[in-house]
């Protein structure tokens, strides 16, 4: 089902993907990787590059055959109508699970880092109102927003890396021995969890133009993402050490608090909070649009705009019903979300490719 209006380019999709990565990368990755691989944790994103590249190659092959179809139509054609619908319904459930999870994380992070004592429902309501307003203005607006926000985030990361360079202690990030390989492989699962959102975003494929350049742009995005995640981990572990990074609730914020230039430029963590707010907003908007797009293709709807408000109302309730406290959320991230995201983000596309080859569809 190709729509001529409200489309974005592959480049804009990759911009959205890169911004989406930045939110969980700064929240979840430093503590998880330093817990798993200690001082070698910062190397783990390099390992996660391989499955991401494999996913890009698989999707490129699929898009060569199915240029105009939506991802739901592609899955239904390859796996058969019934199995395809079942798989797509699972993806809808996955997205509907992730949105309240990130909404809750977003509000909890603001409460625990800056606005302590505030009721987090205020942040959830404000976020959802703005998301409804922006999504009503179509996907193109999100694509253009990503083009504006990403250079700002990139520049901030570059400046932050430069400012924190003198604070990095090399004995916090070295030495790395051969016996660190297994811990690094274990730590790389966390980066794979985050990279799994590439496949979820590709459910917008029927609203993406110029898929001919998908491979080139996706590879560029993959290298940029791996490099930026690597820099974030190197800075955080290098400044704080793996033992502090693994125990701190928000290690990146703690590392940024160490920035001090001639005792005049200090407390720049407010910029990190601003970046988080933008990144979370983009992440949640993109995921809600993706979920609505899955619904549109799954139920053959002509318009999903009337479903937006009721879906967001459900998200609001799920945001508070998903977990009783932050501890439960973190336990969930450490245990269940890793296999679930890797399954939906990497294994199902691989199965899709295998079934497509066996049935002669690809």
């Amino acid at each position: 089902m190709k729509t001529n209006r409200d489309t974005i380019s592959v480049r804009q999709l990759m911009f959205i993907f890169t911004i989406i990565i930045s939110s969980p990368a700064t929240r979840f990755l430093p503590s998880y990787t330093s817990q798993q691989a200690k001082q070698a944790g910062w190397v783990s994103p390099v390992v996660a590059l391989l499955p991401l590249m494999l996913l890009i190659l698989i999707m490129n092959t699929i898009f060569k055959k199915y240029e105009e179809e939506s991802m739901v139509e592609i899955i239904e054609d390859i796996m058969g109508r019934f199995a395809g619908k079942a798989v797509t319904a699972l993806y809808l459930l996955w997205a509907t699970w992730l949105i309240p999870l990130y909404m809750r994380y977003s509000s909890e992070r603001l409460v625990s880092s800056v606005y302590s004592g505030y009721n987090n429902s205020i942040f959830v309501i404000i976020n959802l109102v703005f998301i409804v307003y922006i999504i009503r203005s179509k996907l193109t607006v999100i694509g253009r927003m990503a083009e504006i926000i990403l250079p700002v985030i990139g520049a901030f990361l570059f400046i932050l890396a430069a400012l924190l360079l003198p604070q990095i202690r090399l004995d916090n990030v070295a030495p790395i021995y051969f016996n660190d390989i297994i811990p690094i492989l274990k730590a790389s699962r966390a980066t794979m969890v985050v990279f799994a959102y590439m496949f979820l975003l590709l459910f917008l494929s029927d609203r993406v133009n110029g898929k001919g350049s998908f491979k080139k742009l996706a590879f560029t995005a993959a290298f940029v993402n791996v490099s930026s995640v690597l820099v974030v981990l190197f800075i955080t572990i290098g400044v704080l050490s793996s033992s502090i990074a693994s125990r701190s609730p928000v290690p990146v914020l703690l590392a940024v608090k160490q920035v001090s230039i001639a005792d005049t430029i200090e407390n720049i963590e407010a910029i990190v909070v601003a970046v988080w707010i933008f990144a979370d907003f983009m992440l949640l908007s993109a995921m809600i649009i993706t979920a609505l797009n899955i619904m549109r293709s799954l139920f053959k709807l002509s318009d999903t705009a009337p479903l937006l408000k009721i879906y967001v109302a459900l998200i609001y309730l799920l945001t508070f019903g998903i977990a009783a406290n932050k501890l439960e959320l973190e336990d969930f991230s450490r245990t269940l979300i890793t296999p679930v995201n890797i399954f939906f983000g990497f294994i199902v596309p691989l199965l899709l490719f295998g079934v497509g080859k066996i049935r002669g569809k690809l």
Partner: protein
Amino acid sequence: MIRVWDRIVILIVVIAAICIVDLGTMSKKGLKRERIVFLVLTGITVSYGIYFYTHIFSASLVRAMFKLFRIDI
């Protein structure tokens, strides 16, 4: 302090307002499939909302998942 039933009444009023606006728009445009999906979503939202507000201190989907997959934390 807002009581449980006050929360449920607020939820139903908000959902009713959304229904009036969106179902009206869909009827005008003749979107039949959309109306069915909308009503199903509304049903899920209202029933989950009532469950959540009546079990506000014990409702946790994550805990339910841990029980389902028998994960000890």
